[in-house]
């Protein structure tokens, strides 16, 4: 059974149709990529799933529950984590605070923050340990007290990854996670995603321009052009398809394979 199902999604802004009848399903514990030219609506699909945008029509189902009428925070609490194209870290806060901001704790409630019973304290301590562990793995362990704005771009991206993981999501929506990373970091990130899928039962949906990455890790790929899913299949099938479209429409419609 698919963990995420997008059914006939329509989205329009003031007459401009951004998405048309977008449908696809994502199997649990898989890695799915959305590819397509700039402006095809890939990020909009993410925005609809994480409920930052309200779809004009269509449904989104996650783990057997319809989620397109929920609020963004409720969607997140169901277990959908979202990483943006820019790291969008909280610049003025420390690295540890940034990472911890992804954890949803009892101590976020004013009453528990004030009273701090044993359960609250334990949960808080455990979250700190867990988040510290994630930061260590991402190579940010030594910088947890530094202000996030002092990090390099790649570090900021890892930090936003850590922040996302702190919420213990079951589905990760990653918007171009490899942009601005060097080859070593990309390899590391790929390995990391595979590990998450295998060891932690996490499902990953990627928006990605780097075709090498897409080919390496995707179980399934959907090609979006002008707001429509024009092809779905394995990575290799889609690559062929994309080449055809490129030949037909000209290369400005398809991102370079880099």
């Amino acid at each position: 059974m698919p963990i995420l199902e997008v059914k006939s999604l329509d989205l329009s802004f003031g007459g401009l149709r951004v998405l048309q009848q977008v449908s696809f399903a994502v199997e649990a514990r898989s890695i799915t990529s959305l590819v397509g030219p700039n402006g095809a609506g890939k990020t909009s699909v993410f925005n609809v799933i994480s409920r930052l945008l309200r779809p004009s029509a269509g449904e989104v189902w996650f783990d057997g529950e319809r989620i397109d009428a929920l609020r963004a925070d409720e969607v997140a609490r169901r277990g959908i984590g979202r990483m943006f194209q820019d790291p969008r870290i909280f610049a003025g806060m420390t690295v540890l605070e940034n990472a911890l901001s992804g954890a949803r704790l009892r101590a976020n409630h004013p009453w528990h923050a004030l009273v701090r019973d044993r359960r609250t304290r334990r949960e808080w301590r455990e979250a700190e340990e867990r988040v510290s562990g994630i930061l260590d793995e991402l190579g940010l362990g030594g910088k947890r007290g530094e202000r996030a704005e002092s990090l390099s771009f790649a570090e900021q991206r890892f930090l936003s990854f850590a922040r996302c993981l702190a919420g213990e999501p079951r589905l990760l929506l990653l918007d171009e996670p490899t942009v601005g990373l060097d080859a070593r970091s990309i390899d590391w990130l790929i390995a990391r995603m595979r590990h998450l899928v295998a060891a932690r039962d996490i499902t990953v949906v990627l928006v990605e321009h780097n075709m090498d990455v897409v080919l390496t890790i995707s179980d399934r790929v959907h090609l979006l052009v002008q707001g429509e899913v024009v092809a779905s299949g394995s990575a290799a099938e889609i690559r062929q398809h994309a080449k055809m479209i490129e030949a037909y429409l000209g290369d400005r419609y398809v991102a370079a394979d880099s």
Partner: protein
Amino acid sequence: MSELAQLVLNGLTNGAVYALMAVGFAIVFNATHVFHLAHGAVLTFAAYCFYLLVAVAGLGLLLAVPITVALAALFGCLIELGIYAPLRARGAGSAGLMIASLGFLALCQNVYAIIFSTDVLTIRSGGLAIFRLGALTVTSLHIADAVVAVIVFLALQAFLTRSRHGRAIRALADNPQLAPVIGIETRRTYVLVMAIGSALASVAAVLLTWDLGVQPTMGFLIVFFSAVAVAIGGHGYLPGALVGAFAFGVLQQLATWQLDSRWQGGVTFAAVLVFLALRPQGLFGARLNVRKA
């Protein structure tokens, strides 16, 4: 019945002055993303300039008005170059800019008070000639207010859609990140926007000074009123500011109709709140759930 009609008419004439302020505020807010409270200081600056030119230097209106507009535009440019640009260069965002803007408003109000005293200075005494439309009355100045506001607005719209600089301003308002990519000189455009916004404020200042006179604190409430008008009209759509300003002017008057006028302020703002509760995006604003990344 004529009472109600007169109230609406009063509101429209007051709305004209708000409109000039609100459109100036909106164009600065849209393009530079500064919550430009110092707009009130520009208004008062222009009013004192106009007062000095007419009452002290004895210039005619034909000379005094253009000079006032030019001086106000220059003042606006100086605010941009002396305060906003350096703040942006130091990494200030919207909050920092707004506080600095508020600080500048406070600074100016008090400097004006020290120079000119807190008394109302006036260049003209007595009432203006009136036209009677049945039971209704209106003055030539107030007709002029509304005509000037609409003409200035139409000219501004034409400038924004037709000219190269105007399109640059709109591009900056739509997408500040992309604008430099397509070859728009952000910093120069900011200065231009401040000049235009301040010129609009100076027209309001001329009308207010001619009608009522000038006082150091005159800018404080009116800048908030015009910002409220922008909120009523809806963010990011210039005609919205115009409509919002007229609507706010009329609302202020209608708040007294059939009600005790001591509640005028309370009723006016309660009505604005009810409106914002029902329509937080304003009359013409798009509901944007995602900020531009």
